[in-house]
């Protein structure tokens, strides 16, 4: 019996080492500029989706009633020129004689005079306002004069606000988080189902294969939305159901691809060798067949993620997907489409984000296909 040398020790330093399929693919992927750019874009968007909502100053479901549908702007709201008129309106409602209000930084103050004692309850007008915070009344001893001070909170809505006054940037971040996670989870679901089903069907062959593939054919001709609606109706509208529904309808192609691969793999020598050594069928399937089908499967998954995201958007567009106040890019787009007259940015930002994600995933998928394709070396 000969002792098999350890390949890493056997090679002297400096001599060329063999590269695995995956290392080779990685090297070629890195040379594809579009794919690398896509990976960076996706990484950034993933980070934004994961951590953006935590550090962003506006919660995604906070309603700013006084700033409904404000356009995107780098300047702070309320507008500088709108603060004093709003303050004076409140003073008029409070029915007190007042001097010229002064605005310095975020502090606003005004001198008050009156013939009768000033009622401190006028503060309520300011407490109820959404614009001014911490109003304080500093009255002289006779109660006839005093100074009213209040703070103005300046808010930034870099992407504007939606139809009921929620910050668009925060909502898009949540939308990215939901859309990406549904895309990934649904693809993982389709991956597990499709790979197992296809490999089992292809490996067992014969009658079992026939029946299993007939089932796939029949499922193919049923409209996808039918399943989703049924699942949503049965189990209620929840995130988990949505990704299960999408995953459960998208595994069919995967099953076909893996079955085709398995059919050619199972006749190869290494499988016969494993059979000769008495390996179990399940063992051969999971140790030898499935790992060898992964090349095309990985490519298919990158193309499946954008498909799942689109499907989720379609469901949300139809009102079957994510429910308010939670949101996804599809829901944001459908809200934006309803409000686009006069507030076009409500449609543009989420649509641009979705297109960017889908673009990146498509380029990454193309790049992966090119780099994993053995014909293309």
């Amino acid at each position: 019996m000969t002792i098999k040398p350890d390949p890493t020790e056997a090679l002297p330093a400096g001599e060329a080492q063999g590269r695995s399929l995956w290392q080779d693919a990685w090297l070629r992927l890195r040379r594809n500029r579009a794919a690398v750019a896509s990976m960076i874009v996706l990484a950034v968007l993933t980070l934004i989706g994961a951590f953006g909502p935590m550090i962003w100053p506006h919660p995604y479901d906070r309603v700013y009633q006084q700033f409904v549908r404000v356009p995107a702007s780098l300047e702070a709201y309320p507008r500088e020129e709108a603060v004093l008129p709003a303050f004076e309106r409140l003073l008029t409602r409070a029915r007190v004689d007042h001097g010229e209000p002064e605005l310095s930084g975020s502090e606003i103050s005004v001198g008050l005079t009156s013939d009768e004692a000033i009622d401190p309850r006028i503060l309520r007008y300011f407490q109820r306002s959404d614009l001014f915070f911490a109003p304080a009344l500093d009255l002289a001893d006779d109660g006839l004069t005093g100074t009213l001070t209040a703070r103005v909170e300046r808010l930034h809505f870099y992407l504007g606000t939606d139809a009921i006054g929620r910050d668009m940037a925060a909502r898009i971040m949540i939308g990215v988080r939901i859309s990406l996670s549904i895309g990934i989870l649904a693809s993982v679901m389709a991956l597990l189902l499709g790979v197992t089903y296809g490999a089992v069907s292809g490996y067992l062959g014969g009658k079992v294969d026939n029946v299993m593939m007939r089932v796939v054919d029949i499922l193919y001709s049923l409209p996808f939305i039918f399943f989703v609606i049924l699942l949503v109706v049965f189990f209620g509208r929840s995130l988990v159901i949505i990704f299960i529904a999408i995953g459960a309808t998208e595994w069919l192609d995967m099953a076909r691809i893996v079955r085709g691969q398995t059919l050619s793999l199972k006749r190869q020598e290494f499988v016969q060798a494993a059979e000769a050594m008495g390996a179990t069928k399940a063992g051969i399937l999971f140790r030898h067949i499935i790992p060898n089908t992964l090349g095309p499967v990985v490519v298919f998954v990158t193309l499946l993620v954008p498909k799942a995201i689109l499907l989720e958007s379609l469901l949300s567009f139809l009102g079957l997907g994510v429910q308010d106040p939670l949101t996804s890019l599809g829901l944001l787009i459908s809200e934006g489409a309803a409000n686009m007259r006069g507030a076009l940015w409500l449609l543009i930002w989420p649509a641009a984000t979705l297109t960017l994600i889908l673009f990146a995933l498509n380029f990454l998928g193309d790049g992966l296909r090119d780099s994993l394709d053995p014909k293309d070396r």
Partner: protein
Amino acid sequence: MLSYTLKRLMSAVPTVFIIVTLTFFLIRLAPGGPFDLERPLDPLILANLNRAYNLDASLWSQYLTYLGNLLQGDLGPSFTRRDFSVNDLFAVGLPVSILLGSLALSLAAVLGTFFGAWAALRQNSAVDYAVVGVATFGITTPTFVVAPLLSLFFGVVLGWLPAGGWSQANPIYWVLPVVTLALPQVAIIARLVRGATIEALRSNHVRTARAYGLPTRVVVGVHALRAAMLPAVSYLGPTAAGLLTGSVVIETIFGIPGIGRYFVQGALGRDYTLVMGTVVVIAVFIVLFNLLVDLIYAWLDPRVRFD
């Protein structure tokens, strides 16, 4: 070829039958019924309604009744649209959907093939990159983004076309829905044809045709494109079925009275017969177009034989 066609049609019957059966029992399994309103109906009225629609019979006998009616081409009465049978609804909606779908399909096939072949003939040129870039954009931008934007731009800002609505007699109402329906398909077909043409141009039979000294026009138009159409044709089969049976997004956004909406509305309102009717129509279209694809395939590729 006739016997092949007949055999294929016969073999489609069990598939349609299984789909009908599956759908029938699945939709019945869903909780709720067509007459569940926010305010529950009087039990007597509900019982009467159930009797009128034969819902009080056993599920099995309802299934047999439905199958019997289906064989006679009767899709039954709609549960939520009183006074309409599903046949009535489809008689109005299906021609609209088919009109839109076939226009979009033709547009997509012609433009997609043209741009795909053009890009392939000028591979790695500015034209090629432009086509691939625009096509990627067309594939990745969802219809429900494109539709409102086009409607806003051409309908409201420029005012050239109606922003929505439908008129069977006035083709100006057809333009935006057809273009929106066709755009993603143009993009996909252009990519498919481009890839296949590049491969076909390198293949042996095209090289032979070139060696014979045939003009480029003939080499490309007859020999290369013929092979390059194959993937696009097999893609177009199921796509055509989908386009002709209506798109829920387009119909919702442009307010078009097609049948695409019926499936979603029917499933949400538990309009059993409407859902069943839509599924039957879609299944029949899919079967027909898969057959059509196989026939076209054999015509394009002489190596494929009917046996």
